[in-house]
């Protein structure tokens, strides 16, 4: 029965509906137009995507290539590659962005690069194997982690002299200066501690135990909180700076990724206090955390072994270095989407951005 009714329907349409002709003509036109539109207007779409921000540059240290890659943040392309000392890791600008300090770990020195010419103009005494460092807001004190000798070396980069050496735990790594410049916090990977250093006396005044292998510390912009990542522990501790008490411990769980691979390293806090971003190392994701409620909002897929991160000056983009895949991923901070990954040298490690 069903069959015959279908046949009937077909017959009807073939023979009877004369007025359908016009309708069909309209329908064809309606179908054709959107089909042709994209063929006709490709140039219009291509041109519209370029935006006009000031040409900021991102400097990326490539640990294995002994180079820096420079990325134009307008075009999101590598515009230059500069050769530097062996195994460059932590990099940071001085206050007026005329000099870039580079931890050349295998050369046991911190190099000073003249940003305008791209030339290395000095090698600072840094102690052995400098890995990460932080520059004091006064520009006269560079706090350097000496991974192999359990020391923090304080160097005056302008006079090129060591002003102090502070004994800390085994394998010092992360380094952070409070916004008011009164405190420096260093992490020691093997001792699993945060070492609080008074910048006036250059003395240790407190230690905080955190989870295994703390890698990186980051002060909140108001200086009230300290975020510390623990690589093997797989956690990030949020510490109250005044009381040194732990306010919260963040844990991460990514669908389809084994827990052992979740190894938090880099942490970045947006200056509006809204988000914290945590680079999760071999988990190849960046966690987006609500900095107020400590809730993990999302995980963004980036390249392999994501290490450190940096914001563009307008905080529109967050850049991540992906060591194993050798690229830098760009996160659109408003949309919380990864928009591009840019090939750089081998094992990109640190990032510094010049407005």
């Amino acid at each position, binding site marked *: 029965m069903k069959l015959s009714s279908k046949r009937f329907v077909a017959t009807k349409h073939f023979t009877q509906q004369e007025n359908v002709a016009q309708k*069909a003509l309209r329908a064809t036109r309606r179908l054709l137009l959107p089909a042709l539109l994209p063929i006709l207007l490709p140039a219009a779409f291509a041109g519209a995507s370029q935006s006009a921000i000031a040409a900021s540059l991102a400097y990326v240290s490539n640990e294995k290539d002994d180079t820096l890659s420079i990325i134009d943040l307008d075009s999101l392309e590598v515009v230059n590659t500069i050769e530097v000392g062996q195994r460059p890791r932590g990099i940071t600008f001085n206050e007026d962005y005329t000099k870039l300090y580079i931890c050349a770990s295998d050369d046991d020195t911190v190099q000073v690069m003249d940003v305008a010419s791209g030339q290395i103009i000095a090698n600072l005494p840094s102690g052995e194997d400098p890995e990460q460092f932080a520059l004091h807001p006064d520009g006269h004190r560079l706090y350097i982690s000496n991974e192999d000798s359990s020391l923090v070396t304080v160097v005056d980069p302008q006079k090129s002299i060591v002003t102090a050496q502070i004994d800390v735990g085994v394998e010092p790594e992360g380094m952070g200066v409070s916004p008011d410049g009164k405190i420096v916090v260093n992490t020691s990977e093997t001792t699993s501690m945060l070492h609080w250093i008074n910048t006036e006396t250059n003395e240790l005044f407190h230690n905080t135990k955190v989870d295994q292998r703390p890698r990186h510390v980051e002060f909140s912009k108001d200086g009230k909180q300290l975020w510390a990542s623990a690589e093997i522990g797989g956690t990030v501790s949020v510490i109250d700076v005044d009381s040194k008490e732990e306010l919260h411990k963040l844990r991460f769980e990514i669908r389809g990724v084994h827990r052992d691979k979740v190894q938090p390293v880099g942490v970045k806090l947006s200056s509006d206090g809204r988000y914290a971003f945590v680079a999760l190392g071999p988990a190849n994701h960046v966690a987006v955390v609500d900095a107020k409620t400590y809730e993990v909002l999302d995980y963004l897929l980036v390249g392999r072994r994501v290490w450190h991160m940096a914001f563009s000056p307008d905080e529109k983009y967050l850049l991540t270095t992906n060591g194993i895949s050798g690229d830098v991923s760009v996160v659109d901070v408003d949309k919380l989407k990864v928009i591009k*990954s840019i090939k750089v040298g081998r094992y990109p490690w640190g990032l510094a951005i010049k407005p």
Partner: protein
Amino acid sequence: MTPANYLIAFNGVLKREALRFVHQRTRFFSSMVRPLLWLVVFAAGFRAALGISIIEPYDTYITYEVYIAPGLISMILLFNAMQSSLSMVYDREMGSMRILLMSPLPRWYLLLSKLAASTIVAIPQVYAFLAIAWWFDVQPPWVGFLWALPAVILTGVMLGAIGLFISSFIRQLENFAGVMNFVIFPMFFMSSALYPLWKMQESSEWLYWLCSVNPFTFGVELIRFALYGKLNGEALAVVSGCLVLFTTLAVLVFNPERGAIGKAPGGKGKP
């Protein structure tokens, strides 16, 4: 014959195709469930296992869900095309094809109408799938949805033409199971729908070669690039070429007498 006559015929074919689709609710249901199962279940399982490095047209790392979405769109088109050619076999067997052929319009025109109609029916299925996939983080740029349309149409018509061509060689409805085995599955699996071809190349050169000559691969890539606002010239050329080739072949070999009713006594059908 005036253009109006042509339109009436086209309209008839389209309406029939649409009615067939609407009346078979399970068909719409299954045409949605099939790719969604792949997206939600299969892709979730393989998410960690298959690392996708950056390949054109993507600018960054993507999840496996994002990778297979264009392949699943092509899967919708493939099943739709095969279902449509299955209906040709059915019509031939049941005799309703006579009504179609009663039309005084040229046969090639009727076949083209059939192809166009079945593709038009596929378009809402594709966009319904894309809408649902949006919730599973398959979120191409908005402009991609517009660009995808011509790519979907071209690929749909090409697959329809291949289906029509094949259906000319099938005598009975029962044989259609073979089409599943020998056309749909190989076409789908030996393509870039589920895994990038370089991955295939790592395991077998021979399979890689098969995949890289499969027209379905080019359909998938055409849609993949279009979804991200890019044009894959090679895919466009191959898909258009295959479209013309298989449409011509389908029209040339189309033989309504083949099949149950047309079977000449003694079984001596035409070659």
